[in-house]
């Protein structure tokens, strides 16, 4: 329930007063409510919980986190002996 399924917004429209959209989950497309992400535009990535988009995935933050973790991983890899002795 809390896990959510990531997908890409491919269509945005209105139905019964709600902002709705078509979300592409890697080939399978389903409808979701976009009322909680009014800033969403077509092409944005989001995570769907029980039929609702609750947040967009920030490209920039995703990349910055990856860069930081790559740095950490590379630093750890430089001294394999330290790893062995501490584990």
């Amino acid at each position, binding site marked *: *329930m*809390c*896990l*959510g399924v*990531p*997908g*890409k917004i491919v269509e945005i429209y209105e139905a*019964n*007063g*709600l902002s709705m959209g078509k979300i592409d989950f*890697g080939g399978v497309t389903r409808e*979701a*409510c976009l*009322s*909680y*992400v*009014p800033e969403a535009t077509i092409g944005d*990535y989001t*995570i769907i*919980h*029980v*039929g*609702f988009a*609750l*947040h967009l*995935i*920030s*490209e920039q*933050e*995703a990349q*910055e*986190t*990856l860069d930081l*973790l*790559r740095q*950490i*991983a*590379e*630093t*750890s*890899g430089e001294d394999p002996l*330290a*790893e062995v002795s*501490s*584990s």
Partner: protein
Amino acid sequence: MKHLSEYRDSELVQGVLAEIRRTVTRAWVLMEICGGQTHSIMRYGIDQLLPPEVELVHGPGCPVCVTSLELVDKALAIASLPGVIFTSYGDMLRVPGTGRDLFSVRAAGGDVRVVYSPLDALKIAQQNPEKEVVFFAIGFETTAPANAMSVLQARALGIKNYSALVSHVCVPPAMHAILSSPQNRVQAFLAAGHVCSVMGYWEYPPIAEKYRVPVIVTGFEPLDLAQGILMAVRQLERGTYEVENAYARVVTREGNLPAQGVIQQVFTTCDRKWRGIGMIPASGWCLRPEFAEFNAEERFSVRQIQPEESPLCIAGQVLQGIKKPGDCPVFGTQCTPERPLGATMVSSEGACAAYYRYVLIETGQ
């Protein structure tokens, strides 16, 4: 999916795990709040890859597990009424009530339907105006925006035959309850990333401060979990207790303000009984009085039966991080996902179900 492969990149995860091994000098107990995180941890075997000093205990963040037995029994009674279509998230159907579950109500002729979203339940109500459609509105802060919206929509569209059996629970009061228990072992929290995407993490600094525990907002992919654990271990080692965000691509400090607005509009705080844990003051949300017409508890008067738990089940202690599924004498024998004694063995977010699926079945241990 964009970035998904990177966040599952095993080399990168190994690198972060190596940094955890380099950082840790003594034993620490961390709790991941969310059952979705528990399943990720077991699925990818992250607990097995951690140094022995770092122990993960599993939190109460499994909605179907903590929905009180009284409410499950009430759901079973309402679902059994003639003229009712009872709708629920699929996880709830196998959750044991007193002596039976929603599947057995369906087998006995009850109209019990699984819905993916509360808006689907609303559609069923529109398509069946002669029936009463009841939705079992369970969950933490992550399902609250959806469940609240269904009530607002029912009112906006004039759908009179829709009501919700509300069983909402909130994470911060549960953290208080766990940390103030004399049996508490938790020294740091991995906060549930998607709960925080709705609520933000402004509620956590007072908890971190009061109990001196680091709180790390953490995601669900292996790399997210490794990063969350690393940040928690770093804080524990240096003796700090701050709130940090390891899931910044999704979570902001203030959270989703439109969603919080709708939650506030529809729900109000109430005391809530948690299955296996007991009453936690101000730990839930229920419908505001102005939405009473959509409250299934008021619409249907059902006979209250004496709820009865299996005396063998230790789910309550598992949900508080005091025991692990393997400590249970009936785990995998008298209690299995097919014949569960407690709700933690049922759900895709239950800790016992995660151990059964990823430890017992896949490794044969």
